[in-house]
């Protein structure tokens, strides 16, 4: 069918360059119609279930996903069908095989009359919370059981007016307090379940305006809860959750200095003249921005500087401006020089051993950003807003800086990188590599995957690019299935040395252990742990497990080339595996017979594989 030509044309290829927030309702509608015709395999299969009519939210989510470069299909469970019927083996939703399910419940419809009882007596809060959780948990559990999907579960915004009016906060059974308690209990109930993510609808409705977020007309008429203007807000949040769960994250935030970290130009205003701190409005805005940037470290995001300045001036400003929240030691990497920004960005990526597609650049100069976009289109560039009051929040829209969960490794990541530079310094003191490796006193621990390591292993498989032999990146659900499968083993590897704890840094996926032929389906190792033969110690252990513990006859392995894993293209050759064949795509298959298996020397590593 011919589309009316007066609207600007939208095609799938264009979607990535579009700002999803700028799409009109009609554009979303048109875009999704075109996207649905494309035969691309869907990276995201998103199902919607609950007790409302979701349409047209799925369209908005699909459009937003496309703008973020993800292909998708969606399925909305029909309204009015009991949830137990929707989330069971053999149901249409299960056959759709979602990798994400958005679960949303309207309380009033879930438990009619319950909300009127919350102010009844001293124990009614607790009783109502328990009853609500009792009616939600089975739905979540059956969704977890019958699919491998990640469940995106929305929490409960309170009403826009309270029964007791302004006296609500004074009451022991007030509604504000009830909803706070309900949401905190909801979050806690699923905190230990890695496949449940809470979608904070409370925060979203608060930002948008609780009364503006709902469309009562549409709810009364058709059980559609949300106002049109709120759909992009939910869509954006769901896309954030989905992108983060799929490992589409940025690892390092690179900051410009002048008119970015502070107001003014260091070379002209001097270290005491640049505007950051208390005193004037622009300085306070930059103070807030610096605080927010510093907080990103707690998510495991690395901070770096790339600025055209004199290195001595920059050293001085960090020395004398102790009123700045950000200190010199918060940055894992400093590129201060007069060379083009993209050169500095490349150098930062190399130094941190990450890809340039893991970088976010915050800069005030449109010209610099334009040049970086041309030279390194994979770097996400954010321009510092002209209005100072908008600057502290300018990174909020970068999805790549969001994490589904913050692991111990994330919290200590900056320290890890600093330990690494200590290692580098120490290395310079040794003439031979072996002497250096011995001096590190590396100890590794290899354990079958458990509840404590599941999330971290998923994170590693999702984001490791260099040392990643096959790029097989199982979802959390698939990982859990592997753990349950008797013929599979997922091994997690942790490393420590005399400079510190590197945390859980490797994962091996083994399959076929109950048969004659075992397979290494993937092996990933964090780039922080490369270069000291930890991989040899791990493969020695894998060989031992397959041939001695499981009595397999042979071990099959594979190398699938990607844009980034060239450093490990010869890994199996180097560890005694025999190359069987190489196909047209460059995929190499290997076999190791039990009789040919030998351990690779790496006596500088102590292994604990109990």
């Amino acid at each position, binding site marked *: *069918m*011919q*589309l*009316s030509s*007066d*609207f600007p044309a939208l095609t799938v290829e264009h979607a990535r360059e579009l700002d999803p927030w700028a799409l*009109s*309702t*009609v554009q979303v*509608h*048109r875009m999704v*119609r075109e996207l649905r015709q494309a035969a691309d395999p869907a990276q995201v299969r998103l199902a919607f279930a609950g007790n409302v*009519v979701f*349409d*047209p939210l799925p369209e908005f989510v699909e459009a937003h996903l496309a703008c973020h470069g993800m292909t998708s299909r969606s399925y909305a469970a029909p309204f009015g069908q009991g949830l137990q019927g929707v989330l069971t083996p053999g149901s249409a939703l299960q056959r759709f095989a979602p990798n994400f399910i958005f679960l949303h419940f309207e309380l009033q419809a879930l438990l009619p009359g319950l909300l009127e009882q919350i102010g009844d007596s001293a124990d009614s809060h607790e009783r109502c919370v328990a009853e609500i959780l009792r009616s939600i948990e089975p739905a979540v559990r059956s969704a977890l059981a019958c699919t491998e999907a990640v469940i995106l579960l929305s929490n409960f915004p309170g009403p826009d007016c309270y029964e007791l009016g302004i006296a609500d906060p004074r009451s022991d059974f007030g509604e504000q307090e009830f909803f706070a308690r309900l949401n905190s209990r909801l979050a806690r109930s699923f905190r230990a379940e890695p496949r449940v993510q809470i979608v904070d609808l409370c925060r979203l409705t608060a930002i948008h305006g609780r009364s503006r977020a709902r*469309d009562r*007309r*549409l709810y*009364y*008429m*058709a059980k*559609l809860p949300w106002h*049109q*203007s709120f759909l992009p807000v939910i869509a954006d949040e769901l896309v954030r959750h989905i992108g983060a769960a799929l490992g589409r994250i940025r690892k390092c935030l690179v900051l410009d200095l002048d008119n970015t970290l502070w107001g003014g130009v260091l070379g002209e205003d001097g270290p005491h003249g640049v505007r950051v701190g208390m005193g004037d409005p622009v300085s306070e805005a930059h103070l807030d921005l610096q605080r927010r940037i510093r907080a990103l470290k707690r998510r495991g995001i690395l901070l770096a500087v790339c600025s055209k300045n004199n290195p001595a001036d920059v050293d001085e400003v960090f020395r004398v401006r102790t009123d700045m929240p950000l200190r010199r030691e918060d940055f894992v990497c400093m590129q201060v020089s007069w060379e083009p920004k993209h050169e500095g960005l490349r150098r930062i990526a190399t130094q941190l051993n990450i890809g340039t597609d893991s970088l976010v650049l915050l800069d005030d100069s449109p010209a610099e950003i334009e040049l970086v976009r041309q030279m390194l289109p994979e770097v996400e560039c954010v321009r510092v807003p002209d209005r100072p009051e908008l600057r502290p929040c300018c990174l909020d829209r970068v999805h790549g800086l969001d994490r589904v969960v913050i692991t111990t490794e994330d919290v200590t990541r900056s320290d890890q990188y600093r330990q690494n530079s200590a290692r580098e310094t120490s290395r310079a003191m040794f003439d031979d590599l072996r002497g250096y490796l011995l001096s590190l006193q590396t100890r590794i621990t290899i354990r079958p995957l458990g509840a404590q390591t599941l999330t971290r292993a998923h994170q590693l498989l999702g984001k490791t690019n260099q040392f990643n032999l096959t790029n097989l990146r199982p979802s959390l659900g698939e990982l859990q299935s592997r753990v349950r499968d008797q013929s599979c083993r997922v091994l997690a590897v942790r490393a420590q040395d005399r400079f510190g704890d590197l945390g859980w840094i490797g994962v091996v996926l083994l399959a076929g252990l109950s048969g004659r032929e075992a397979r290494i389906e993937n092996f990933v190792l964090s780039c922080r742990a490369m270069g000291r033969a930890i991989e040899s110690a791990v493969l020695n252990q894998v060989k031992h497990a397959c041939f001695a513990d499981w009595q397999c006859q042979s071990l099959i392995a594979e190398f699938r080339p990607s844009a980034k894993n060239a450093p490990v293209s010869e890994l199996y050759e180097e560890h005694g595996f025999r190359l069987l064949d190489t196909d047209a795509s460059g995929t190499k298959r290997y076999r190791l017979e039990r009789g040919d298996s030998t351990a690779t020397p790496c006596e500088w590593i102590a292994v604990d594989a109990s």
Partner: protein
Amino acid sequence: MDVQLQRVIAEVLGIPAERVHAHLRREDVTEWDSLNHLRLITAIESELGAAFTMEQIAAVSTIGDLERALGRPAEDGFSSGASR
């Protein structure tokens, strides 16, 4: 009729703009089911900055009713009783 309104209707219902005129009735357009009706209403609201009441939404059974609900009189006297 209003060109922008015509375009939004054609786009949301997925029908050629030429088909969109005041006399067109809901029962004549397969695509104009109850779900697409609400889509149409919310699309018109956000694209044209309008706001319909529940009564208006329920009463619309022709394009002409939509125009009248928007306060843009249909070009002929055809009426199906959209309540204001």
